[in-house]
């Protein structure tokens, strides 16, 4: 059974169709890059997979480990192991990172029928995962993303990914706004979290990120459909020739 199967997915926002029949199969252990011009539907795809309320699915099916993903509320999709590293992580004033993450981890554990983590176990886990992203301790006592720099916010996304251990991670332009050092740390974090049982979708405009997170497949999304699929060489070709080349 595939980890994720997207069949003829169509979705719209405010009456405008953005996804026009997306088909994609992802198996365990695979990294899929999705590239494409602005407005192609890349971020819409991540929003639809995670259940953002602004989008309406008009047709198609998405199966996660064979389960109907689209019928689940956003929190259940997350507990089933779908994680989105947001392009624009949201600031939540007044909610501390510790409280936020402890709630998230324990609600997921409860869903899995596990006991909640004790405070000491939880803090130990946080320390371990924080080291992975070379994050400063002080960030965890601050409110979620509040006052974080662009790089800190992206590291914080991958840190949360490390804490939640998803089976499917969607990285939505995780490289945007990162300098080269932060990019290396974030990519190293993502690579360390890779296991034979999980998979990633890496949405990016630039080939640069794919030097660090090497994809098994590269897909080009244009006007709401996947128009070309290849291996990592396709990303290099796109970088040289641009997307116009695909229309020729």
């Amino acid at each position, binding site marked *: 059974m595939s980890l994720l199967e997207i069949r003829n997915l169509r979705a719209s926002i405010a009456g405008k169709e953005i996804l026009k029949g997306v088909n994609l199969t992802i198996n365990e252990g695979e990294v899929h890059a999705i590239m494409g011009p602005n407005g192609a539907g890349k971020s819409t795809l991540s929003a639809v997979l995670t259940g953002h309320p602004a989008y309406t699915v008009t047709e198609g099916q998405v199966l996660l480990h064979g389960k109907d993903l689209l019928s689940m509320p956003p929190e259940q999709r997350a*507990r089933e192991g779908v994680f989105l590293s947001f392009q624009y992580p*949201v600031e*939540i004033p007044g909610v*501390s990172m510790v409280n*936020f993450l402890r709630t*998230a981890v324990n609600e997921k554990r409860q869903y899995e029928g596990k006991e909640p983590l004790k405070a000491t176990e939880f803090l130990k886990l946080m320390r371990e995962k924080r080291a992975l992203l070379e994050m400063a301790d002080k960030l965890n006592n601050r409110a979620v993303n509040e006052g974080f720099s662009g790089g800190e916010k992206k590291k914080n996304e991958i840190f949360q990914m490390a804490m939640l251990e998803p089976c499917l991670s969607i990285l939505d332009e995780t490289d945007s706004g990162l300098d080269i050092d932060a990019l290396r740390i974030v990519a190293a974090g993502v690579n360390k979290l890779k296991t034979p049982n999980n998979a990633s979708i890496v949405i990016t405009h630039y080939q640069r990120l794919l030097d660090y997170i090497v994809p098994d497949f590269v897909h080009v999304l244009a006007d709401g459909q996947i128009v070309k699929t290849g291996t990592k060489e396709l990303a290099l070709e796109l970088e040289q020739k641009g997307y116009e080349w695909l229309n020729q």
Partner: protein
Amino acid sequence: MAQPIIISQSGSYHYVQDTAGELTIYVLLFTSEEVDIEVSQMVSGCSVTIKGLCYISNKDSARVHTHVKHLASEGQSQQVVKFVLNDEAKGEFFGELYIAKDAQHIDAQQTNRNILLSRQASMRTRPQLIIYADDVKASHGATTGQLDENALFYMQQRGISKSTAQQLLLQAFVKDVLPLSLDGVSEHIQERLLSLGIGEEV
């Protein structure tokens, strides 16, 4: 510092500050109540803080009127009043700030922030500043809105249920208007705070 005053039921409450010092008042309302507070600063060097939380549901309506009168110089006042309105609840805040002609060097702030949890809930807010002195700092601001949809989705995407996410956002919203200690708060009010999940320290 003197023990704060806690107001949790209808009435007109008058305070006269006739010696220099600080006064702290908390308003905590969870059902239909009408509260009028008047504070008069008679001598210089007085400071008053009024914090309020009105968290109401069903068809209840809660009203808070404040009248802060700066009648002497070098006074301070700070008001932060918040309403959380669910179902068909109605809230009203009327904040009057008066600074007399001879009351110079006053520093007065008034903030009213409100969250509507349902489309049927409604809020009326009316700040009124009456200032006759010319060397003062006075500010006011009022906002009414919903819980941040983006923040809710972000938390749900991490596996937090929508109701828990709402509660976390509400806890954050009300944190700065609650007393630092629940000692001296009536058991009934403590129960209400805890049942709303907003009184516990995290």
